C-alpha cells in the first residue's frame, strides 16, 4: 500500500469518469440539436398559435426594465412585419408561468398561449382553456380580473392564476407599446 495504491485508486476513478464522460459527450452530440429544436419548436408553435398569420419570427432585443418580459419577437407575415410576440413569465400560484402573447401592430392582443406552468392541475391549469385565454383577444391597455375592477372573468377558484396571466398580458402590451 503505497504510491501504487494511490495511483490505482486515482487511475480507476479517472478511467471510469473518462469513459462515462466520453459516452455522455457522444450522447450529447447526438441529442443536443434535437433538444434545442424541440424547445424552439414548442415556442414557435406557441407563437404560431397567438399569431397565425405570421410566417416567421425574428428575435428582437428587449431593452425595457420589466422583469416579467423575457423575449420579444418580431412577427413577419407575407407583407412584412405584422406585430410582435412577447414571451412573458409572470408568477402564478405554483411558480413561474411561461407564456407568449401576440400583439398586433395596432397594439391589440391577437392571442395568448401558455408554454408551461406549474399550477395546480384541475384548478390553475384551467387557464390553458381557450375560453379563458380568448377573453384577452382584441384587448389593449391594462388587463385585470373583475374582482380587481377589470374585465377578465377569473377562473373560479383560481384567482391567483388568472391575475398572473392578466399581469403577463399587461406587461406584454406595455413592452410593445414602449417599442414604438
Amino acid at each position: 500500500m503505497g504510491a501504487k495504491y494511490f495511483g490505482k485508486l486515482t487511475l480507476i476513478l479517472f478511467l471510469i469518469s473518462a469513459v462515462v464522460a466520453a459516452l455522455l459527450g457522444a450522447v450529447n452530440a447526438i441529442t443536443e440539436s434535437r433538444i434545442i429544436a424541440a424547445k424552439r419548436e414548442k415556442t414557435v408553435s406557441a407563437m404560431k398559435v397567438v399569431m397565425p398569420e405570421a410566417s416567421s419570427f425574428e428575435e428582437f432585443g428587449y431593452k425595457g426594465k420589466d422583469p416579467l418580459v423575457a423575449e420579444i419577437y418580431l412577427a413577419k407575415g407575407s407583407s412584412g412585419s405584422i406585430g410582435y410576440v412577447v414571451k412573458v413569465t409572470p408568477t402564478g400560484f405554483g411558480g413561474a408561468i411561461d407564456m407568449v402573447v401576440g400583439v398586433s401592430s395596432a397594439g391589440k392582443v391577437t392571442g395568448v398561449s401558455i408554454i408551461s406552468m406549474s399550477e395546480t392541475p384541475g384548478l390553475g391549469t384551467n387557464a390553458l382553456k381557450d375560453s379563458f385565454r380568448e377573453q384577452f383577444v382584441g384587448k389593449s391597455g391594462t388587463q385585470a380580473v373583475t374582482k380587481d375592477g377589470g374585465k377578465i372573468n377569473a377562473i373560479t377558484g383560481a384567482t391567483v392564476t388568472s391575475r398572473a396571466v392578466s399581469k403577463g398580458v399587461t406587461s406584454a402590451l406595455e413592452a410593445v407599446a414602449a417599442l414604438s
Partner: protein
Amino acid sequence: MNIGKQFKDGLVSQNPVLVQLLGMCSTMAITTTLFNGIGMGISVLVILTCSNVVIAALRKVIPQKIRIAAYVVVIAGFVTMVDLLIQAFVPELSKSLGVFIPLIVVNCIILGRAEAFASKNTVPAAAIDGIAQGIGYTIVLVVICIIRELLGSGTFGAGIFGVNGGGIRIIAEGYPALFLILPFGGFLTLGCLIAFMQWTANRSADKARKESEAAK
C-alpha cells in the same frame, strides 16, 4: 441462478417500494399521472439494468474505498444519457418529471441494488435482477399513479391518450379530490397501499397457520 426467484423477489417479496421502501421521493413526487409513472418506471428499469450490468462487470476491478464514488459515476452517466434522450425525444415527459430524472441517480434502489446485488454477482444475474427490480418498481408506480390520477384528477392516462392528450375523463370536473395529487396524497396513497399489502400478507399468514393447525 434462479430466474423465477429473482422475479418473485423483485415483484413481491423484495419489492423495492413496498417492502424495501427505497426510492420514496420519486415514488411519491411524480406519481400523479399514469404517463409519469410509466415514463419514470421505464427510465429506472433501463438505468437499473444498465448500471447493474456495468457494475457487475467491473466488480473485481473497483477498490473498496472508491466503490461508492465509482458506482455513482456509472449510475449518473446512465441517468444523464437517459435524461438527454428523453429531453430530445419525449420533451413532454422531461417537462413533467422535471428534476426527478436527474435525481434517479440518488434513487436508493439503484445504488442499493448496486451494492447489495450487482457488486457480488455475475453479469447475467445482475441484468436479471435489474429487470426484475425495475419491473417491480414500475408496477407499483403505475398502481399508485392510476389511483392518484383517477381520484385526484378524475382522468385516466392523461398525456397518453384522449382528446389533446387530456386522458379519459372518468370523474366529472370539479368532483375529484384535488389533494390526492398533492404531496399529502402521495404519502396517504402509498401508506394505504403498503397497509393493504401488509393486510393481505397477514391474512394469508393467518390462513396458512389456521390450515396447519387444522391439519394437526
